[in-house]
């Protein structure tokens, strides 16, 4: 397989762009957060379009406003995730298409129309350093948390797939307002169990790669438990009654009651919801 080297110069990194992959596995016992793509499914599809079965490191973009140029080399990439009009030297490319880039090409990703996270997978590999089994940015394990203007991303490009090899059209998200959950360890102690499944919940502005706070409040008469493990998808209830969904960069233990657990497959669906958007928790049927 022909491999060629090159690099991308980040002109505008947007609000929060970084390199992410499947994240770190097995370092919880030293307190290391997992990191990884906020929307794993989109990142996986972008890689699959390039005939890569693993979630190889992707450029993860939050809300758009990104501009980069290819300084050297050639590469084939695919964008999947949030909806936006990506342009190469001014020509529009929809996400889901294979895109060939070569030296001098300028790519602009305007603010997103819908969704929050967009992934650019690359045929081959980004050359960012691997720390503890993952390329995912997480400071201070990696030098930086996110990309800054002027940063360079080296890549090793693999042999291109044929042009128009395939195209992923608009993706249909089933039950977009339904987030599948399992009751968490402290669920049974709750006063307002039923409300969790009958009322809509709203994503708030307070969110990051660490967690998403929801707008609604739930009555909380629980005592805070001893610090216990939390995972991406764990929903904690604060003493004030707010719900916090732990996301990819969340710490590995938490001191609030753990009331729900979002199904791994729906974590990305929630991540793509913008502040103000509503959804329902759908209790998963029994699984034993």
């Amino acid at each position, binding site marked *: 397989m022909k491999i060629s080297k090159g690099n991308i110069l980040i002109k505008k990194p947007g609000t929060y762009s970084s390199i992410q992959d499947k994240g770190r*596995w097995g370092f919880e*016992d030293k307190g290391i957060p997992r990191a990884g793509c906020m929307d794993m499914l989109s990142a996986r599809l972008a890689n699959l379009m390039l005939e890569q079965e693993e979630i190889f490191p992707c450029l993860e973009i939050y809300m758009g406003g990104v501009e980069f140029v290819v300084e050297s080399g050639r590469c084939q990439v695919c964008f999947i995730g949030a909806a936006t009009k990506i342009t190469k030297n001014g020509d529009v490319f929809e996400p889901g298409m294979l895109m060939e880039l070569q030296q001098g090409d300028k790519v602009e990703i305007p603010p997103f129309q819908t969704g929050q996270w967009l992934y650019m997978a690359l045929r081959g590999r980004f050359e960012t350093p691997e720390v503890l089994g993952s390329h995912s940015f997480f400071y201070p394990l990696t030098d930086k948390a996110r990309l800054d203007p002027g940063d360079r991303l080296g890549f090793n490009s693999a042999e291109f797939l044929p042009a128009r090899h395939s195209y992923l059209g608009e993706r249909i998200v089933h039950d977009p307002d339904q987030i599948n959950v399992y009751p968490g*360890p402290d669920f049974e102690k709750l006063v307002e169990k039923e409300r969790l499944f009958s009322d809509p919940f709203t994503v708030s502005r307070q969110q990051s790669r660490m967690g998403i706070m929801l707008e609604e409040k739930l009555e909380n008469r629980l005592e805070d438990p*001893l*610090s216990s*493990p939390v995972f991406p998808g764990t929903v904690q209830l604060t003493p004030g009654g707010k719900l916090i969904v732990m996301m990819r960069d969340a710490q*590995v233990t938490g001191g609030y009651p753990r009331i729900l657990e979002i199904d791994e497959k729906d974590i990305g669906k929630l991540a793509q919801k913008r502040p103000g958007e509503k959804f329902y928790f759908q209790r998963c049927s029994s*699984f034993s």
Partner: protein
Amino acid sequence: MISTPHVHVFSPYHFEIHWPAMISKAILFDMITCKSNLTVLLEEESYRLAMGYHVLAVYFEKPGNVKVRKRLLENALNASDTLALKNRKRWEIPVCYEASLAQDLAAFCRYKGLEKEQLVDLHTSPRYLIHFFGFLPGFMYLGGLEKNLHHPRKENPDGNIPAGSVAIGGQQTGVYPIQSPGGWHVIGRCPIHLIQKDQLPPFQPGDEIVFTSITLKEFKAFKDKPAKDLYHENI
């Protein structure tokens, strides 16, 4: 075993073993033994393993047969491999208790009615037990802080606590491995980087930590020494 732990199944991915909700050395030792058994039994699986004070959680990458997994966790509880407990170590972590490096040292002493020397004596005498890591990468949850030093956390957390800060919050004491916001009272600073890139802290849950007081001059000499070279002995 001090009392019966139970296996709980929360989802096809997520299983936990719960011990009674208390901070206890006996429970910690049970958990360490069980965790070590699990890593052997789960060799073929891709999973995450995490610990709190009384909860051991297993999160599998892929859903699988719930009954088989549950039985596997029960087997891990019943096995009696105590090898994991035979490799425990006691580590000495140097701390400089100087106001120039510890923003809350003077206020803490004033509030507690202690001379600095008394505070240093109280803080350096216990053998602290590492229960687990959490909050920040490499942050140790330590048991054993003297009652006289218990002090409620700050109402308004500080935005930037420097890496290496040794602090007290509630009934706990700990070392901030990296710069971070935090609500604990900083009483000293450790010159060693507990975490650096892929160099994780060499300490394990079940190990003991002893803080030793050093001078400002020694603080400068200690800088850049890797954590694994800290003085330690088997216990």
